[in-house]
């Protein structure tokens, strides 16, 4: 997938529509712009390099260009690499106009160093306080100012399942509770399939734990452990139960799982060799690329109870501080493009995520995205992924413990003690 942008007539059509609508919507904004001597030049660092991703970011670039701006694309493969380049360039005094980060505490230190411009005007105009899910507000609004423009909402713990595999195993309906999940896994195993397609990398194991912590432990326990880092909650019998259920999933994974990439695990579900996978909604792109349709070839389950938390993550753009009014102008224009409903729709359709604003044309989203849009309207259901509450460092230390516990025969009490110690710093 790396590098090759798929030539997709559908995408081109969306692109044209986006440009038209964006131009119309933002013409007013342009009227207030100083009579631009040169086109406002935006150098944007991001890590959207796979086929679907680069098609998605192209929609943003097209919209920016349609307003008369010059888009300089600095795509860097790999989030870690990309963020390292952004940080180094900010420290070195040559920051990009805008840079991608995950919706998380990854950019909190740069805010504290006062190295980012705010986007308060657009936040006020669009009423982000009312429309954005609380977990996103928690990380982009610091001391009353908005420091990032959110691009999308991903949900981390979707359950993707193969319809033919479920039929073969005789599973009548989607699992609606943790017990039903294990019952379905047992049936898949009995049918001779790999019940759970899993990529044995620390972050993917952390997704399985998040599924159990939020669905079995519930919202309160989740927040006490992940947000408050409360030692009493970490050592509680409730978390013990969550850890045991998480470890129980290991029985349903094939032996070749360690080190496997997430998309190779998705391919197992697509081919019907495996029953299901727990993964964020970026996995949808793999199904689409294989020519499969939601609700026909595969199913998507957002949670294991009617009021299950919706685990929000996503991407944002930040705007490094600058003294140059021309750059500032380009940044404001970029922030407006990112927030524009037409751009939001075009980008998120290709990316697999859902738009950050509720006022988009739902009919143009697929079945899974519509489920997601319906859930986030209930402000009690969105919950942040662990990175939203933990620093990258704490999150990493927690992942180390979770992956050790998953891969070894570490006793559950020791895992609890290790989690408490990992989250102490």
């Amino acid at each position, binding site marked *: 997938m790396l590098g090759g942008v798929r030539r997709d007539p559908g995408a081109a059509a969306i692109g044209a529509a986006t440009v038209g609508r964006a131009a119309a919507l933002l013409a007013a904004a342009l009227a207030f712009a100083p009579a631009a001597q040169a086109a406002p030049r935006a150098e944007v660092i991001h890590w959207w390099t796979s086929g679907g991703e680069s098609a998605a970011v192209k929609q943003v670039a097209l919209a920016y260009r349609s307003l008369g701006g010059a888009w300089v694309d600095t795509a860097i493969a790999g989030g870690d690499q990309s963020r390292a380049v952004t940080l180094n360039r900010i420290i070195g005094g040559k920051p990009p106009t805008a840079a991608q980060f995950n919706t998380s505490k990854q950019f909190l230190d740069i805010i504290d160093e006062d190295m980012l411009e705010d986007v308060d005007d657009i936040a006020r105009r669009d009423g982000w306080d009312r429309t954005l899910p609380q977990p996103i507000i928690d990380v982009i609004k610091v001391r009353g100012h908005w420091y990032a423009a959110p691009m999308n909402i991903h949900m981390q713990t979707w359950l993707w399942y193969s319809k033919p595999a479920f039929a073969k195993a005789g599973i009548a309906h989607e699992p609606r509770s943790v017990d039903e999940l294990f019952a379905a896994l047992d049936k898949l195993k009995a049918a001779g399939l790999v019940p759970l397609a899993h990529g044995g990398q620390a972050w993917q194991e952390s997704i399985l734990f998040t599924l159990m912590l939020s669905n079995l432990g519930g919202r309160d326990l989740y927040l006490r452990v992940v947000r408050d880092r409360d030692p009493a909650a970490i050592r509680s019998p409730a978390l013990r139960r969550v850890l045991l259920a998480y470890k129980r999933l290991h029985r349903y994974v094939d032996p070749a*799982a*360690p*080190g496997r990439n997430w998309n190779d695990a998705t391919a197992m579900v697509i081919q019907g060799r495996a029953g299901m996978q727990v993964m964020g909604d970026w996995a949808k792109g793999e199904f689409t690329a294989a020519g499969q349709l939601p609700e026909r070839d595969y199913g998507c389950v957002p949670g294991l109870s009617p009021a299950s938390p919706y685990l929000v993550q996503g991407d944002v753009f930040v705007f490094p501080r600058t003294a140059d009014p021309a750059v500032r102008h380009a940044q404001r224009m970029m922030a407006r493009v990112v927030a524009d409903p037409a751009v939001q729709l075009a980008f998120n359709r290709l990316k697999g995520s859902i738009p950050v604003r509720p006022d988009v044309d739902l009919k143009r989203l697929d079945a899974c995205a519509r489920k997601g849009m319906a859930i986030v309207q209930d402000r009690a259901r969105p919950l942040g992924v662990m990175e939203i509450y933990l*620093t990258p*460092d704490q999150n990493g*230390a927690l992942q180390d*413990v979770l*992956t050790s516990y998953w*891969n070894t025969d570490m006793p559950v009490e020791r895992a609890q003690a290790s989690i408490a110690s990992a989250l102490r710093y």
Partner: protein
Amino acid sequence: MKRPSLKLSTLAPHAALLPMAVTAIVAYFGAALWTLRISLTGSRTFPSGSYIGLAQYQRLFDNERWMLSLHNLAVYGLLFIIACVTIGFLLAVFIDQRVRGEGLLRTIFLYPYAMSFVATGLVWQWLLTPGDGIDGAVRALGLGGLSGFSFDWIVRQDLAIYTVVIATVWQASGLVMALMLAGLRGIDPDIWKAARLDGIPAWRVYTRIVLPMLWPTVATVLLLLSTAVVKLYDAVVAMTQGGPGTASEVPTKFIMDHLFLRSNVGLASAAAVVLLVPVLALLAPYAYARSRKEAA
């Protein structure tokens, strides 16, 4: 008229070495001191000046993954060096027998060294993946059917680190061979003639006479291999990513993860300083031996 030219001839080499010396002092010592300073601060994403004493070191040695990384490095280092030196020496002796097609064999053995660790790691990861690669090939040949053959070290907690040893030995032993062969070719043929006259078997000549004479070459090989051990990073990332779980984590990966991914420059610096200690411990005897040699 002789004096100035003499002065110039002693000055010129020093002047020529100056840029290198400045680079070494500023880039290496400067960076090492900077790292030491940062390791005493509470730096997160950015280097900061808030000193917190030895707290980062305390935290480092309280960290299970770091301790495991050190343990893995010791196991890996020992096996890697022993295997490389043994295989490299045997290959060199083998080629030294004036075999036919020597040039071709030398190229084949040295070839892996031309590949990057990342490429080597990826190739071996494919070879070692259970169900594919070696495992799959043996089964496809029908050899594994009865004895239940399986080669799944790369996904085994207790064995994953050994797969990294296999891949990197495959890569580096060719270099050891080349160095050893150069050494063997430097041995005076008269020694061989004398030994033959005395009726000493060839293997004893190699172990008792030739190997001791090759000591400077062996020292160079050991130094090169030791630095490769401490630097071990890319092969692990390409092969196991430190997994399964944290089973094949190494210190450099801990440092890189904390430097960028986990935005904890302070802890990463403390780990880097700790990693500098074995490097100095390796370097000190070498420098000592050289200084004695110069004095002699």
